[in-house]
């Protein structure tokens, strides 16, 4: 679907967060010169089409105790990566899981799975599970731990 002007204004007005007031949708509508009901109806449509993934809390994993955050990367046989990727996505503890291009010779990995835990030991344990699942289809892997959040603002469209 294409964004219309109202969607664009709605995104610009809410991408930094909803106002924490008793009638947040009315407050957004007031800014945009529409009713709160119009805001709610459009958000409902955007949820349905998937343009809005969800409306809620975006936690800071670190502050919530999930201080170990490992981007596990795997070099998986191209003929099996899609089937195995689906199975890995279902493991608990795996959040994002994607197939991405290799950048040879520096970067042989084509499957990325984000792992979150309260400790590195917990993340390593999850990685062992992944390795068992991948079996001989996997030729090598690495885990890149994040050591600092440098920026986390989410999407920022320009209001135009």
């Amino acid at each position, binding site marked *: *679907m294409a964004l219309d002007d109202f969607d664009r204004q709605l995104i610009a007005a*809410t991408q*930094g*967060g*909803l106002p*924490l007031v*008793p009638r*947040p*949708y*009315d407050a957004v509508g007031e800014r945009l010169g529409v009713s709160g009901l119009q805001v709610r109806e459009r958000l*409902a449509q*955007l949820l349905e089409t*998937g*343009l*809005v*993934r*969800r*409306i*809620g*809390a975006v936690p*800071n994993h670190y*502050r*919530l*105790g999930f201080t170990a955050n490992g*981007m596990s990367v795997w070099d998986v046989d191209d003929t099996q990566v899609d089937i195995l*990727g*689906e199975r*890995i*996505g279902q493991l*608990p503890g795996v*959040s*994002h*899981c*994607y*197939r*991405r*291009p290799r*950048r040879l010779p*520096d970067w042989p990995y084509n499957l*990325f799975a*984000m792992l*979150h*835990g*309260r400790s590195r030991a*917990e993340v390593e*344990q*999850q990685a062992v599970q992944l390795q068992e699942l991948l079996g001989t289809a996997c030729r090598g892997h690495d885990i*890149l*731990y*994040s*050591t*600092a*959040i*440098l*920026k*986390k*603002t*989410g999407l*920022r*469209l320009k209001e135009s």
Partner: protein
Amino acid sequence: MLSPDDARLLERLHGDLPLTERPFADVAAEFGWTEEYVIGRLSALLESGMLTRFGPLFQIERAGGLFVLAAMSVPEERYEAVTAQVNAHPEIAHNYRRAHALNMWFVLGTETPAQCAAAIERIEAETGLPVLAFPKEREFFVELKLPLTSGEAHGA
């Protein structure tokens, strides 16, 4: 750490704020709390940094836009300066330092592939460092529910 009330509230509000006139009052009613209490707790969680944001999460791909993961290998002595250069671009949605030769990993969110390519070019020109882009070719799963109310080891 989170109080038990905060943990319950965050699990409830992971992604399902009601689209009603007074959504916080409706959530409060589910727990037998007041609207003021829910708004107060959310404000406090934002202020303390437990939450980075509260509101709609947009999936720009559905409107033709895209998120692209990219990485750079930044010399240690320039790390802070390059972080500032990269983060100054509004296209950068997230940026993480990671322990690897490729030590800076960021996500660009743009409305078109051309905007993404242009942002990467600008970053390369400003920093003099190559940017490796890793566009997603296939998504297997996205979403993580952290077990906030249990003390269980995550993923155990």
